[in-house]
């Protein structure tokens, strides 16, 4: 019994390595792109952040970042770090949710968006605005899912809510 628990824990820890790699790589890339998109050099950004240029270069690599350094970097570009903790079916947003909500979407939504030749954000925004225009009530809760109902054909394909049809009825 204990052996199987140990094995499961060990495997979770091992899988964490891959998740960390993913996070580090994607974060570093986004940061580089933000700076390059704004036309700033590393030195220029360094003087704004009141640090040395190598510190900026280090931040733009897939390293172990301090949350504080990350936030300061992103703040310079009016960008924000959105974070949520997900355990099982529960998602709790831990970043400030006054501007944006993070929601967990079923994996299929990606495919639905692709079918309409939209990216995920566009697809969700369209679904929300269409549901709103159709006067269908929906409820956003950071600790819940937005569920798309493929049966609703009002705007091509889907409706947003936790069973929007039931709520509308």
């Amino acid at each position, binding site marked *: 019994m204990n052996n199987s628990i140990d094995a499961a824990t060990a495997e979770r820890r091992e899988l964490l390595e*891959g998740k960390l790699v993913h996070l580090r*790589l994607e974060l570093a890339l986004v940061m580089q792109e933000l700076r390059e998109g704004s036309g700033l050099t590393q030195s220029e950004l360094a003087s704004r952040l009141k640090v040395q240029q190598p510190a900026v270069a280090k931040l733009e690599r*897939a390293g172990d970042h301090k949350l504080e350094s990350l936030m300061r970097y992103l703040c310079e570009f009016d960008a924000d770090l959105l974070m949520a903790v997900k355990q099982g079916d529960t998602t709790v947003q831990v970043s400030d949710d006054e501007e944006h909500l993070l929601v967990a979407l079923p994996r299929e939504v990606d495919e639905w968006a692709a079918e309409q030749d939209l990216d995920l954000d566009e697809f969700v925004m369209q679904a929300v605005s269409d549901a709103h225009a159709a006067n269908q009530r929906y409820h956003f809760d950071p600790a819940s899912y937005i569920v798309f109902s493929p049966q609703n054909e009002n705007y091509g394909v889907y409706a947003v809510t936790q069973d929007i049809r039931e709520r509308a009825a």
Partner: protein
Amino acid sequence: MFSGIANAKQVTRKPKVPALTTGENSQLMSCLKFIEAHGVKKLENVTDPQGEVVPKVERIKSAKGPLLEMKVKSSMHNPRFIYVDCNDVAVFLDAFKKKTQKLLKIDIERSDNRYADLKSRGDC
């Protein structure tokens, strides 16, 4: 049977450990996913070969071709992969799991030959 090797004992060898551990494999998967999404050059741009954090990607200076070496974190095999950037597609030429600090010359040569072969066929 191998011809020309008299008295060579034929055995069925099974590896004692998996080729990659779960952790090594999950890191490799993340790197491949990143390459698939953003291209090979981006991976090189965002990793720090001098830093302590993995993954590390660096150019193999002693190679004739533009070979790159990628290392992932490991407590067992110290796996590293040699690949080359073919029009923003990563072509993996070899993989190693060794505790040695540096790639052996013979291994780099083998990858160089594979790259030269790809190039001669117009695949890279």
